[in-house]
């Protein structure tokens, strides 16, 4: 049994996962509600909230369970936020004389696919698309992956959020655009899909194109064309993601990260493996899952373990 802890960005999370990938408990204290209230802006940097939430979240996930190891996201992320999780994990593992498994947050996202009942076996090509990250990876074994392409500027989830802001929609932006796009015509506007070499992504030009479309429309007409703009903008993001996946020639495809919730993306990739939605956004079950295939640091060698901002 592994206790996973995740504090790399906005979510404070803890989960218990068995050695064969069964989720026993998973607790996520989300800041979504706060974000919604403040239009996507965090009223405070994450670490203070992580600090308030980490003990109750771990207590709720752990209960009276006997565990064999503690896993924690050690990189990449905001240093102060990561340190809250890393310090809690060290203290808990130390007190119980357990090994500690530092986990790369991005490996965690891919390892959400290894949890039961999905229990996906490599090889497959995986799109990881969230607010902070967008990359395409080749997975040959559960212990790792090879990066095929990554965003050169904005992440896909960020493109959704900033697009929603430009259109005057609420937060979370991805959900708002997805809903409005259903009433619009995806062919109404031709947004450019950036041509970058290889399998990399670029979304910042798309964001700028939307900005100018919005600026050029008189206010009254903007209201009437909003659904068309949302549909066309979403279509351009999805097309960029799908084109890159298709360019790999992969037969088995999986999608992880918050953008996996997008309905047009799901419809465009009917054969893709998708983790259940609560496991697509940041959570700790995926961290415990990744720890099953990572190198544990034995007690007490991890006391000097540091959080790292970089992947």
């Amino acid at each position, binding site marked *: 049994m592994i206790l996973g802890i995740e504090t790399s960005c906005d979510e404070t999370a803890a989960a218990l996962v068995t050695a064969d990938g069964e989720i026993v408990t998973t607790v996520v204290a989300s800041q979504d509600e706060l974000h919604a209230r403040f239009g*996507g802006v965090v009223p405070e940097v994450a670490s203070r909230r992580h600090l308030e939430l980490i003990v109750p979240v771990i207590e709720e996930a752990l209960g009276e369970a006997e565990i064999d190891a503690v896993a924690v996201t050690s990189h990449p992320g905001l240093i102060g936020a990561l340190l809250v999780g890393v310090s809690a994990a060290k203290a808990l593992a130390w007190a119980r004389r357990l090994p500690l498994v530092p986990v790369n947050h991005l490996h965690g996202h891919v390892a959400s696919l290894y949890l039961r009942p999905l229990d996906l076996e490599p090889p497959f090509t995986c799109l990881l698309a969230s607010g902070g990250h967008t990359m395409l990876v080749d997975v040959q074994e559960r212990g790792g992956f090879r990066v095929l392409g990554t965003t050169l500027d904005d992440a896909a989830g960020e493109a959704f959020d900033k697009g929603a*802001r430009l259109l005057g929609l609420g937060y979370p932006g991805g959900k708002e655009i997805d809903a409005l796009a259903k009433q619009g015509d995806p062919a109404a506007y031709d947004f450019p899909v950036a041509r970058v070499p290889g399998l990399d992504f670029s979304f910042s030009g798309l964001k700028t194109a939307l*900005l100018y479309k919005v600026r050029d429309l008189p206010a009254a007409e903007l209201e009437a064309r909003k659904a068309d703009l949302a549909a066309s903008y979403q279509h351009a993001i999805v097309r960029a993601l799908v084109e890159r996946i298709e360019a790999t020639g992969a037969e088995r495809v999986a999608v992880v990260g918050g953008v996996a919730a997008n309905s047009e993306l799901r419809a465009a990739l009917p054969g893709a493996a998708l983790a259940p939605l609560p496991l697509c956004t940041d959570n700790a079950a995926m961290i415990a899952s990744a720890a099953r295939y990572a190198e544990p640091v034995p007690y007490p060698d991890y006391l000097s373990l540091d959080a790292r901002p970089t992947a």
Partner: protein
Amino acid sequence: MQTVTSSPEATEALAAGLAEHLSAGDVVAVSGELGAGKTTFVRGAARALGVTGPVSSPTFTIGHRYEAPVPVAHLDLYRIAGLDPEEWGDLEPYFDGTIAFVEWPEHGGDWLPAARAVVTLKHVDESHRSVRIDCDPGL
């Protein structure tokens, strides 16, 4: 100085020119609306300072730190309403021994270290940006 650039590449080149004058401990504030080219500007400077990997937007992650002869930090305060002392503690490590670029510096309040250069980007039209760089007199 103030100039108008006609492409992202030209904005990057301008940033590379500024980067030549920067050293460890320097902070550069980069202001401008969505899509004005802030991340593009930081990318140009980071390249000139020896960063080789992708320089992507830190909007969601808030801070990126890149290894280079002098490490480069790239912060984005877009999602932060206003810094207070505890939050400053979260960001402080990014300024330690780095050349730090800060997007949305106006959200930093009084807590940001004084900037050696202030870059202001504005939309002119879809491909042109006006770039104004105000430097500390010592730079």
